């Protein structure tokens, strides 16, 4: 499959899912498409582990799901962020910022 894409950093998939869902409710395939498109194919979602993540986030109460008919008249399961999920997204984003800038500072050393 062409070029080697960097692995998703451990634990970031949950955060990305929450982020995508904070924009609008979305089904599983849509979420993986969005992540790939927005990252310009830089991030490759392991499509299978996506569902394990989605079910785990549902269990935690950060997202919930409902069934709806798509534009193409297909029944699909949509996920949407809950209030607890918004709070969790805030926490994770903040954590990520700190981590990313710390890594960036170290990498910036000449």
């Amino acid at each position: 499959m062409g070029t080697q894409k960097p692995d998703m950093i451990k634990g970031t998939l949950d955060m990305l899912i929450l982020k995508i869902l904070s924009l609008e409710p979305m089904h599983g395939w849509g979420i993986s498409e969005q992540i790939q498109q927005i990252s310009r194919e830089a991030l490759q979602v392991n499509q299978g582990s996506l569902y394990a993540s989605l079910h785990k986030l549902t269990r935690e109460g950060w997202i919930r799901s409902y069934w709806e008919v798509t534009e193409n008249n297909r029944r699909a399961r949509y996920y949407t962020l809950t209030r607890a999920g918004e709070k969790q997204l805030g926490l994770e984003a903040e954590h990520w910022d700190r981590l990313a800038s710390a890594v960036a500072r170290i990498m910036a050393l000449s």
Partner: protein
Amino acid sequence: MRWISNLWFRLRATFSPRRMERDMEEEMAFHMEMEMKKLVRDGVPPGRARREALRNFGDPLRQKERARDAWGIRWIQDLRSDTRQTFRSLRRNPGFASVTILTLSLGIGGTTAIFSVLNGILLKPLPYQDPDGLVALTHTMPGIDVPKAPLGPALFRTYREHARSLQAIGLWRALTRTVTELAEPERVEVMEVTGSLIDLLGISPFLGRGFTAEEEEPGSPRPVILSYGYWRSRFGGDPDVLERTIRVEGVESPIIGVLPPNVRIQDSDPSFLVPVRLDPDQGVGSWNFEGIARLAPGFSPSSASAELSALTPLACELYPGIALDELERRGFGTVATPLKAEVVGDTGKVLWVVFGTVALVLLLACTNVANLFLLKTDGLARDVALRRALGASRERLFRQNLTESLLLGVAGGLGGVALAWGGLRLLLRIAPPSLPRLVEVGLDAPTLLFSLGVTLAVGVVFGFLPELRRGGAPLVDSLNDGGRAGSTSRVRNRVRNLLAVVQVALALVLLAGSGLMIRTFLALREVPPGYERPAEVLTFRISIPGTEAPTADDAARAHQEILGRLAGLPGVTAVGAAYSVAMEGWEPVENVIVEEFPVTEGEPNPLRVLDWISPGYFHTLQTPLLAGRPFDWADAREHRHVAIVSETFAKGFWLTPQEAVGKRFRMDNADEWKEIVGVVGDIRSRGVTEEPPGVLYFPLVMEALWGPPGYVHTERDLRYTIRSARHRATDLLPEVRQAVREVNPRLPLSSVQTLDAIFAASISRTTFTLTMLGIAAGVALVLGVVGVYGVISYLVAQRRREMGIRLALGSTSGQVGAMVLRAGGRLALAGIVLGGLLAAALTRLLTTLLFGVSPLDPLTFAGVTASLLAVVLLASYLPARRAAGLNLTETLRGD
């Protein structure tokens, strides 16, 4: 809130897994479809697009598994599948399952039932506030052979004022009183208590108040505190009961309080309480109350005993009565015993023996189940090895074993609790009436916890068992040896043999124990109690209160009238009455001085038992008159100074009963001489295992033995005895009641019993132990036989080929059969030797329960050994016959 959504999710996953699955499948199918469409849009041919989409997604089965893991209920699903598998395997093998469950139920049920009794009586704290600080106070007079006597009121006063070791002290004694004008006249159990007793036990009245100090002074009418039960049943729970009165012994008494429900004072349950009235002039020398005290901080029962005993001289000084040197001669002392020990008494012994017995049965049941598990493990060895080879993890297999044994354990535990529930009812019915605190026995939380503990322990142990056995066996060996005898199975056979030997041994121990109890029981039945055919004798108490018959003579005449009326009833052959009939447990005692044998100073003078009887009493009991004459009514009417003595008393002074007649004795030097007019056979009034005491019988009315000169005394409360040859003595009861009512309608009958029942109660401890041991031994025998049978049958099945070859080489079928029988005999002998040693060590614990038989009684041991050997040989005979009947060709072709 997170945990709520989490829980909700897991609950849904647990209880509607199908829907979760369906949703997940649809969701993933949708994903694949979208992915494929996208690829097609990008120009990939449809055939390749499908493959590519699948590859991007990964193995759907694995992805589903990962998603399911995220549900957080993996362990529940595993458990469910383990359970399902267990059920399936148990259904395939219903014999194993039902035998295991039944065996465990028996074992767990038995131990649970007995544990609940043990817990209720011995382990639970007494139901009072801070019960550990409570002690019972009694006196001891070893110098005159009285190990234990009730508390004296004079000493009570001394302790109340001067003892530093006691925070509070109270007195009580049980009485019976007649209550009239409430419903039918009735005779009820009541209790005389000091107000301090109610306080020190921490009882606060449900209604009203306790007794005040003034109410303990003589004079004012005696107030009454009702028990909760009596208030409910006789006053309908009337909330205004404190404004009412109750007529006790014909005297109007104000009701001042009601006790809270379920209050028992030292294990008795009185209908109401009345205040103790102490005679302020009474000196040291009467012993007639029970004492309960609360220790002061820093004192133990023994240090309190020492301090109280040291107060004796002070008591003699404050309340003159018996001289101090006389008390010293008697070795007088005061003993504080923890109240619980006093209440429980020596019943602990019987209970621990019974509990030990039942625990042995549980052990036996467990060895049987262990054996079954081993057989099953061997049968499944190949199956298990195969599954391991196919990749089942060892942990998973172990977990499945554990699930299975826990499931069986829990089923056995449930069966056991059900059995215990039923068994407890039976147990309480046959329990000796002397067992204290029986009301506190039940399947309560500690008991259920106990059976849960036993159940889990059993389940876990058997879950580990196959693991231990399998432990070393290498995979390949198990697969190769085809389930036939391999190197490890020899070890296994040895374990099985050992288990069978242990079973035989345990069965022998229990059989020996019950054999000894049977001998004890027979020996007890052999002892002549001093009366004949007690089942024909109906007994009950009637008390004539002062309001019905003011003087002693009036009371005696009333008794005479009733007796006369009863004697006229059809079918009645004899009637009589006495203050205390055999084995009732009360006995007034006194020293006597016999005219011919003056008591020298300082020499012990044993106490004699006193009783007051009507004419006809001995005739009714059919106690033989050995010499002289019985009483007649004139003896009582004329207050004659006469007495009848028992054989034991007479033999203590004279060679023959005849010599005693006409001799004289008195109680002390100021007393009138009393002439012995008759001698009667001994009655074992203290129970058949006790030597009969020396008894002095007096007429119903006489000059009082105690009290001012010329004071005439009678016992107003008598036990009547009526002999009738009719089929059952109790059939007479309606006519008896009618006859008594015709004489005086205000006289209730109380404590109706046949003499036989009184006798049975006196040996109930033996009967109870015997029944329990008997049941245990029976179960043990069955389990032991099943165990031996199982092992021998297995041996035959395992060695069929070998036996076939032997037959082929010319052994006769008899020889083959004998070989099997010998194997059984070896097990039996080993078990009997081991069991004999164990039994010899353990039956010693029964010593105090035995009577007329030694704990190592050779006859018993020989008998049970022989019968056990016979039964075990029979159990191995059946498989032996099967072995002998083997068909040669079939056997060899067999596998």
